[in-house]
């Protein structure tokens, strides 16, 4: 889901930087309004590193294995820090592992980070219905995790298929988007279940981590 360099037109890459800039500005503005904005920085940074590392865990789906993106879980745990965390995580992935790219950093951050923010808002609804209830935590964790990756997948495939410099006709483009999205449904369910289990685990072990 990380779009690499050389694939998208420059206008799309620059547009991605503009939307990522706007989302980062919005997040930093919300962070600066917190009582002590600097207090959350070490927490967000270490958790950014922890999320990067956690995304390296292989989830076995015989006969292969997959890596999860965890953007929904990032939104659930980090709240408004989720977008800067994803921006930084993608920056590291681009320069250290050549996963993603420097020109597509803005597009990737928007595609993955905005759903993380939406997952954060979705998970906050749990507070209205009962934050101590583990079933609700699991349910909202599933919706945040599965929804986060579903939105990111649809956005990434839409951008890829409609802007890649290939000679595809409209019907082939639509079929590709549907096919790629459908192929990712098992991953969305897996990511949702994984996020739900981690959310319930955190509620049991360290509930303050779910306060965003």
């Amino acid at each position, binding site marked *: 889901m990380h779009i*690499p*360099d*050389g*694939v*998208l*037109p*420059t206008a799309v*890459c620059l547009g991605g930087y503009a939307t990522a800039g706007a989302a*980062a500005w919005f997040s*930093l503005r919300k962070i600066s309004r917190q009582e*002590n*904005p*600097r207090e959350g*920085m*070490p*927490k*967000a*940074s*270490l*958790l*950014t*590193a*922890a999320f*990067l*590392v*956690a995304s*390296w*865990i292989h989830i*076995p789906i*015989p006969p292969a294995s997959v890596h999860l993106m*965890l953007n929904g879980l990032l939104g659930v745990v980090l709240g408004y820090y989720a977008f*800067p*965390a994803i*921006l*930084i*995580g993608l*920056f*590291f992935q*681009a*320069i250290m*592992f*050549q996963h993603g*790219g420097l*020109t597509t950093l803005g597009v990737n951050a928007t595609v993955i980070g905005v759903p993380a923010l939406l997952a954060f808002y979705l998970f906050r609804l749990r507070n209205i219905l009962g934050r101590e209830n583990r079933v609700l935590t699991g349910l909202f964790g599933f919706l945040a995790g599965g929804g986060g990756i579903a939105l990111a997948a649809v956005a990434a495939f839409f951008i890829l298929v409609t802007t*890649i*410099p*290939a*000679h*595809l006709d409209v019907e*082939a483009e639509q079929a*590709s988007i549907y096919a790629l999205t459908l192929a990712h449904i098992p991953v969305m369910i*897996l990511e949702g*279940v*994984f996020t739900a*289990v*981690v959310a319930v*685990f*955190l509620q049991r*072990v360290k509930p303050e*981590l779910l306060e965003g």
Partner: protein
Amino acid sequence: MKLQLDRYAYLETPLHSWDPRYKLVGFMTLIFAFSFVDNLQLLPFMVAVSGVLYAVSQLPLSFLLARMRLPGFFLLMMGVLLPFISGSTVLFHLGPLSVKQEGCLDLLLIAVKFVSILTMGIILFGTSPFLTNVKAMCALGLPSILADMILFTYRYLYDISDNLKTMQTAMRLRGFQGHNIKGLVTLASLAGTILVRSYEQSDRVYKAMTLRGYGQADVNRGGQHEEEFEAYSRDLWGLIILLLVAAAFVVGQILIR
């Protein structure tokens, strides 16, 4: 796991000694100029420019090739798909599938741009220490909270990755196989434990930082970093040359179009 990005930052070449602020601006402009190109006639020049810059940087070829391995899978996927689905001019048939000319040319364009941009990124971040690059980004206007987060993440990435390795080894020694739904729950607990440990560590780090005065005197860090760099005329000339090369690609693309 050690994937040191700035392993060869100690070398002495014009690219290593170039003011990182100018280098960042010059390379990012050239990278975006490369991404602007979609004319096949400009591709040999793109390969030549990235090849010459890589040679000047004196970074070993093995360093570049090792970093191409992971993104190579993406190219392989494109190579399997594009020649068959893109375009209408059939070059030849491969069983029931037909290989199309436009698809092959699209693949060539994407592959060359991809490798060239990747090479430029490796030169940019491989010829200066990572900390210096972050300071340069700060001097160019990166918000201090983002710069702090980048440095902290970089500092603790390896620690946490070592933690994960230790926990995975412990799981294996206790007979963890992880091929069923129970395995997924255990892996989720592993991820949760990493988050909890990191959170607790961050609390200790924050307290230690506060004791050392963190957040007490919120000085203008951008200005502070700017004073750490000293630019000479050769730095400016380097930037001008790179900007001219970038402009040549953009103009070439517009004229040929």
